[in-house]
């Protein structure tokens, strides 16, 4: 049912310029806990952890043998799309908006999918099977094999294109392929499109389906995964992240709705430092946070949904960046990371963080950080441990920081 626009709330002034405001109208997610967002949030609030030994393939000998896997759509040609579709459907059902298709956009954070591992190996064998890559042999042998790789199952753009077609969106359709920032960046881009009056409504979010041999071996080979198989963000004993998978989507609109929560602002930056290590000063992270706060016309927030990957470096630098921005006030801002419970969704991570922040503002309680037992005293953060913490929260910061140095921060605000 279409909602009547509220002209009084529809516009806001920023830097002396009137611009459209952006409101949250729908939420949806598929996770290891559940295929419905309310159930997932409840499990998170109760401090449950979804990380389990990997059973989908033989992970013996892998640097890390656990993950937060989603046991759904296991035979789907493109699991990213299957997961995203479920989450998007839930968000759209809640939003329940009647929209001119030309004013509806789709913005998705996604990385490349993967062909069936057997096909990838067959391609490698087609390249000669010996120690050297044989381009001639590959050019000859790969064509029939390439037919078995559905381009749609591999292309990052598939998810956005397919969702747009299914919901008859004729507005902008974008794929943000930015590693761990993808989902948050997609939400930021969707909000920007509403502000610029290019669309009135967007479906935006991110999806990760990376519990597979290549990603587990690759991240493990880099030393990024927890050797003991525990995700414990901001813990003294944290030693790496655990891969997770899932999809998280929001519907944003220029019209306020029952949730009374708006995306007040966002900020993006690049570290310009290193491919896999963040800037040791946290400068890029701090700039993204500061930009998001300025964009929202706020100087402080009531809660922080951290990126919190459980790696020694990220968590320390995120704390440093937050301290640079908030100073002594940081000690009184409750903070948590959902990666302790659901692992790191890579392209979907930022969108999941956004959903958690929105829900916390809506329900009035902050999620605990699963896996966290011994808060690192050097970080000096107000960490929520064990069980959810109630409070009157009005503003929330969401952080997402990526391999390669891209950073994105979002600020959500409850209206009432």
């Amino acid at each position, binding site marked *: 049912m279409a909602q009547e626009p509220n002209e009084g709330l529809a516009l806001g002034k920023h830097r002396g310029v009137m611009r459209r405001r952006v409101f949250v109208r729908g939420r949806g997610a598929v996770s290891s806990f559940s295929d419905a967002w309310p159930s997932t949030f409840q499990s998170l609030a109760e401090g449950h952890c979804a990380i389990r030994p990997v059973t989908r393939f*033989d*992970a*013996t*000998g*892998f*640097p890390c043998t656990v993950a937060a896997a989603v046991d759904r759509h296991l035979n789907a040609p493109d699991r990213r799309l299957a997961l995203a579709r479920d989450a998007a459907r839930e968000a759209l059902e809640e939003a329940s908006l009647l929209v001119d298709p030309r004013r509806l956009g789709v913005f998705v954070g*996604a*990385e*490349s999918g993967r062909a069936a591992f057997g096909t990838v*190996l067959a391609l*490698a064998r087609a*390249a000669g*099977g*010996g*120690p*050297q*890559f044989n*381009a*001639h042999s*590959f*050019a000859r042998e*790969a*064509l029939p*094999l*390439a037919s078995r*790789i559905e*381009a749609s199952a591999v*292309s*990052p*753009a598939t998810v956005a294109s397919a969702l747009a077609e299914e919901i008859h969106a004729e507005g902008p359709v*974008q*794929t*943000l*392929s*930015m590693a761990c920032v*993808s989902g948050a960046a997609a939400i930021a*881009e969707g909000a*920007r499109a509403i*502000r610029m009056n290019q669309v009135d409504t967007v479906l935006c979010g991110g999806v990760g389906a990376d519990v597979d*041999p*290549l990603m587990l*071996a*690759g*991240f493990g*080979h*880099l030393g990024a995964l927890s050797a003991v198989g525990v995700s414990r963000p901001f813990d003294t004993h944290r030693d790496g992240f655990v891969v997770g998978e899932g999809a998280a989507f929001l519907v944003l609109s220029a019209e306020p709705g029952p949730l009374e929560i708006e995306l007040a602002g966002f900020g*993006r*930056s*690049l*570290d*310009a430092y290193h*491919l*896999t290590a963040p800037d040791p000063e946290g*400068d890029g992270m701090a*700039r993204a946070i500061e*930009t998001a706060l300025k964009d929202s016309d706020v100087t402080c927030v009531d809660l922080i949904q951290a990126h919190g990957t459980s790696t020694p470096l990220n968590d320390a630098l995120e704390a440093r960046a937050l301290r640079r921005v908030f100073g002594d006030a940081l000690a009184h801002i409750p903070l948590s990371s959902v990666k302790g419970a659901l692992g790191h969704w890579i392209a979907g991570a930022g969108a999941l963080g956004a959903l958690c922040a929105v829900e916390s503002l809506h329900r009035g309680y902050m999620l605990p950080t699963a896996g966290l037992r011994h808060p690192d005293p050097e970080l000096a953060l107000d960490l929520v441990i064990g069980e959810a913490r109630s409070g009157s929260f009005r503003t929330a910061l969401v952080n997402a920081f*990526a*391999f*390669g140095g*891209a950073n994105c921060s979002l600020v959500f605000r409850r209206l009432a």
Partner: protein
Amino acid sequence: MKAPVAIVGAGAVAPWGLGWRGASTFIEAPQPSRQLKTSHPDVLGFEIPELRPEQDAGDGRQRKLMSQGARLGAIAIREALREAGWMEGREDIGCFMGVGASGAHMEEIPASLEASLHDGVFSEAAFGERGLYACNPLFVFQLMNNFSLCHGAILEGIGGPNSAFYSRGRGTWTALDEAIAAIETLDCYRVLAGGTDSAHHAVTWAELRRDGLVNDGLKPSEGSAVLALERQSTCPLAWISSMGVGTVADNIPSPDAVLLSVWNPVTLQSLEDEMRLRWPQSRIYRCEFGEALAATPALAWAVGLDLLERGCSSVFVLTQDVDGWVNHLCLRSDR
């Protein structure tokens, strides 16, 4: 777009070489290579020429970590920054890039496969235990598409608002649109916008063939081009006066030149006929440097810039990507 946007610098690396000046001369007399150095037998295509070490991206160690798209993107970003004279305050410069599939170095795969065998049979356990250790440890990161943006940003110190839009062409137009929006909304005052890609990667080539595009006339190419943009300038290289989707541009006076970058010969002829009918006084150019996917739109912008440099006062640039999306922009000079 609220107002024309100034192009104050540009960088490109393409089959015509390094830089954008002279690009339009190349398209008037293109020279496709016969035997691509990536060893596609009997394939007519285009590839960038050999670069001197000082022209290439980073150093040898850094280049080993780069996909071809990342390498070319880093070169184009560097050149655009140099020409724009943006040496200070780079942490505030925005960067919006259209990127394609990163594409890992295929040479890594056989080594990984060999190490993953157990009793002659592939073993997932062996893959995890030693397979990936047999190749470049950052192999998996060559697959991260946003590294086509990040490598250049790291080398040049770019730290402002940014996005990497994945596509086979259309996303590069999105990158330009977002870059312009970033300076219009004062997210930043200086911004880079471009695209980078290679259609030569073995898997990409197999997919293009599988999709029938090669049979329809597609010639693979590679390259990168980046524009440096500001809201205002007293001496820009050129102005972007408008951009949009499709072939129709409202209220555009007849341009001096129309530049078409369309990979399909049949569609190209059809669009050329349409342009001749619409603007009979305009000279029409065809971008004959092959199809470079996410790089193609940006390369076309660079060629358009060169046409202005050679004396045109306005150029209408139109591209169609392999997925059928048509976009255009209008360039004009102050001359």
